[in-house]
């Protein structure tokens, strides 16, 4: 079968102007390729923009997920986190890079082979109402995957649907003839989860599954996802802009900014000691609301982030991203070197990787080594 998508540039082809050889966030944070269930290397997704330009949606993102692990991807809107999730599913095929799933490179598969692999890779989207076809009944929706793959007899399929719907606390007999508009958003999200699990997938990619929900419903769905993960041995990629939600479900967290990876670490490490200035800015913005929720007290919001507030808030354009470090236009610690040289992923602690010339909390010597290219030492080098 011919490939439906025409790539603008084969992988490995020399990069266009403006990309140094060091460009990209590197792959230092990848672990043992033998053990990883999903291993994404140098993922590149570009979309055409007017006047022959390109939107650099995802630029050189690498990540890996071990079986049974949950990887959280956090970032602001427009940082490419959803595009990364979709590129893993080849929706659409990435412009470059490799996506290894169970050792097979998904980017090289034909669409028929990919269709077969997709049974093991399922996805849940942000808006549950629009991801369920409005004119179908719940039974049709959840039975469709089995019908497509012609699994078992009709009785077996209904039995499976009954089981999966009961797993998400819904009664098959009560809901099977209803249509999506008759349910609340939370219930629709449950139906989406049941449908995604019908074929017993290995990987569940959750693209902002709780962003549209109220707190009380959000808690129900998050608990449900945790239960499903444990019971069916799922591996999850959980994409969200809410740091508290991501921490709740993830083993390992990856922070993205404008199509690049900023920082990767275990969930506890990342939240306890953020090393990238962007991670800290994100944390500071949500820590205010989180502090409020602990009963202890609700003090006034701090005016600045330890005197190091972000300089501007606008996301730089992904058509013409800043040279060097893409965060530098917002970064309070930016130096000359940040505009010239792109920071590469490096290890700063046990399983804690950061792509920054001047990571927070680094001893002065480390920062100085990073700044060997003749740039002045950074002002906060005495910080513990």
């Amino acid at each position, binding site marked *: 079968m011919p490939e439906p998508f025409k790539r603008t540039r084969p992988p490995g082809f020399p990069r266009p102007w403006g990309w140094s050889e060091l460009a990209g966030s590197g792959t230092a944070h990848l672990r043992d390729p033998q053990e990883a269930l999903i291993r994404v290397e140098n993922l590149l997704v570009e979309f055409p923009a007017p006047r022959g330009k390109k939107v650099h949606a995802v630029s050189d993102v690498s990540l890996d997920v071990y079986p049974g692990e949950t990887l959280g991807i956090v970032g602001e809107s427009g940082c490419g986190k959803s595009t990364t999730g979709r590129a893993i599913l080849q929706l659409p095929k990435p412009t470059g890079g490799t996506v290894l799933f169970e050792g097979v490179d998904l980017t090289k598969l034909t669409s028929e082979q990919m269709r077969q692999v997709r049974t093991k890779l399922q996805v849940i989207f942000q808006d549950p109402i629009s991801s369920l076809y409005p004119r179908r009944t719940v039974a049709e929706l959840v039975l469709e995957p089995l019908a497509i793959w012609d699994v078992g007899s009709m009785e077996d399929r209904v039995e499976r649907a009954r089981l999966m719907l009961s797993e998400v606390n819904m009664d098959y007999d009560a809901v099977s003839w209803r249509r999506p508009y008759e349910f609340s958003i939370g219930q629709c999200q449950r139906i989406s989860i049941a449908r995604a699990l019908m074929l017993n997938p290995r990987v569940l990619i959750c693209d902002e599954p709780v962003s549209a929900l109220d*707190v009380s419903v959000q808690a129900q769905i998050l608990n449900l996802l945790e239960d499903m993960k444990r019971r069916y041995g799922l591996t999850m990629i959980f994409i969200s802009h809410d740091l508290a939600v991501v*921490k709740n479900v993830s083993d390992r967290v990856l922070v993205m900014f404008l199509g690049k990876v900023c920082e990767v670490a275990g969930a506890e490490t990342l939240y306890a000691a953020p090393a990238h200035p962007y991670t800290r800015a994100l944390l500071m*913005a949500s820590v*205010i609301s989180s502090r409020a*929720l602990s009963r202890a007290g609700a003090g006034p*919001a701090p005016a600045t982030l330890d005197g190091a507030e972000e300089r*501007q808030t606008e996301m730089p354009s992904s058509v013409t991203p800043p040279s060097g470090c893409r965060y530098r236009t917002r970064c309070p610690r930016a130096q000359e070197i940040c505009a010239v040289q792109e920071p590469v992923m490096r290890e700063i602690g046990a399983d804690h990787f950061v792509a920054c010339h001047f990571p927070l909390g680094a001893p002065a010597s480390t920062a100085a080594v990073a700044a060997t290219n003749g740039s002045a030492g950074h002002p906060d080098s005495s910080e513990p």
Partner: protein
Amino acid sequence: MSRKRHIREIDDLDDRPLLEVEGLKTYFKTAHGIVKSVDGVSFDLERGRTLAIVGESGSGKTVLSRSIMGLLPPSNVIREGRVRFGDVELSSAPPSELRGLWGAQISMVFQDPMTSLNPVVRIGRQITESLRYHLGMSRQDANETAVTLLRSVGIPEPESRMRWYPHQFSGGMCQRIVIACAIACGPKLLLADEPTTGLDVTVSSQILDLLNRLQQERFMSVIIVTHDLGVVTGRSDEVIVMYAGQVVERAPTTTLFRDMRMPYTEALLKSAPRLSNESHTRLHTIPGSPPNPADLPPGCRFAPRCPYVQPKCREAEPPLVLADSPRHWYACWYPVGSPESARALQENQAAGVPAAVGVV
């Protein structure tokens, strides 16, 4: 020659709050019966204070804010109760009088910034519109004021941005422009309906800081309607918690978070994931879903989901009563922290009431 000013000046009554809402009810007549979206809400708001209205979707908080403004559809609505703003009775004021108030004395910031601006009109004209209409400014004066406003809400290069269209701005920038439009005529009351929903964390904290700063500079009263309890703290003086169209708890912000009495408030706070929790912490959930507003249960409306529920709760509706601390009201027969509620919870757990199982 100056243009006519279309503005209804209001008297500041020193001894009375700026806004007083008494027994406000807003019902909609639908094919499924009468939907009681707002059912007897009373509160008052003083000049320069911030009130937060918190609740889940469907709790009636948006309808409440629109009902205060008088922005309801013309038919199939039953609206009862009193809304007094300064010396104007908003509930009985004719549309001509409201027109002199909207935008000038009361203004509103809506949830979706991309759709609350007109996409085919340059933002300069959208900001100057109310200045020219209400204050009768000349074109040049209005333009200069608009540039100052844009600068005060943090838009870089305001002179050139005046000629931009809304689609050229990001969501956060659009919300800043909407706020600039809303405060253009120096309103005394600003209603912000979910001003940060749909914005990123970093952007939303800046928008809230901006609202806070403008409020202090201009001595406005602000009502923030939100579903996010985190938004409320540190930025509001008082909080109203709504459930199924009613106020279930009302308290100064610090009191509410430290010493809540209503089980619903407690459950809401517990169900939000926190940064301080370890990962894979099991979240507390509220079982079931909010009641259908066209078919409300008798007694307390939270009773079917409440861990402390007792037979009395299903029969009699609890009134809003004053707690020990000043300005703290709640509506519950078995308030959180009282010995009766502890006993009720124990009984429910022993009896295996689903809502109570697993509550610590």
